[in-house]
């Protein structure tokens, strides 16, 4: 299968990580996975940079919101689209993520792996917003 793009998945829950990874790989994406925010930041700074970052919010070591803040503050990673995967549907969490530069926000309780992969594909192709 051709490489449809490179996705960094930062998610501490093993099930959600494996399920997202399997879904994205099936659609031809290369997936690199991190299990906490610290590892996620380290992998995002490696070359070549990922085309898209999928980011959980509540994680050990460095919380997702701090990962997002750091990515958007660094010139080398600021342009990478970040999609948030969260258990929280609170407006203030969505708003904060948007203010910090997240491209989209998905609540896990309503998440569709198929829709997520489609959105990743749109972002890799260079267009598409929100989640």
């Amino acid at each position, binding site marked *: 299968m051709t490489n449809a793009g490179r996705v960094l998945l930062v998610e501490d829950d093993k*099930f959600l990580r494996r399920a997202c990874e399997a879904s994205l790989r099936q659609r031809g994406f290369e997936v690199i996975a991190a299990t906490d925010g610290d590892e996620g930041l380290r992998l995002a700074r490696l070359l070549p940079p990922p085309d898209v970052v999928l980011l959980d919010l509540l994680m050990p070591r460095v919380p997702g919101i701090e990962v997002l803040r750091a990515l958007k503050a660094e010139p080398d990673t600021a342009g990478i689209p970040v999609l948030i995967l969260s258990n929280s549907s609170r407006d203030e969490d969505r708003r904060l993520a948007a203010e910090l530069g997240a491209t989209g926000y998905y609540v896990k309780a309503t998440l569709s792996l*198929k829709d997520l992969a489609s959105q990743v594909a749109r972002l890799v192709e260079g267009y598409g917003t929100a989640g």
Partner: protein
Amino acid sequence: MAPPVKLTRLAGFSDGTAHGIRSVVEMFLADTGETLEALRGAIESGDARAIEMLAHRAGGASGACGAERLSALLFEMREGSRSFVGDRALFHHISLELEAVAGFLQNYTATLDASAAGLRPAAFGTTERP
């Protein structure tokens, strides 16, 4: 009483195909079972931070798959402020609910297997279909 898993949610999370649903169910039962074992350990050792983190993880995974009661119990555990006895009692409820979820999903995937084999699936214990 509503079934322990909302099948429309499960199908919506996965790609909706029999293969996709079966794959998600297998991963969910294996990985969430592991997380709950770790949660049991955290309760026994009184590690409040680990309890919060593990309950949050498993609650999110359960909600994504449509196991809404299980998810609600895990988020209740995440909120904390109970005694050791209270945590153990709640964990007992969580374990029972996971058993119900596992039994339900195993029966459901068996009906998918029967359909795939061209056999007529037995009536499934819910009126809700994905």
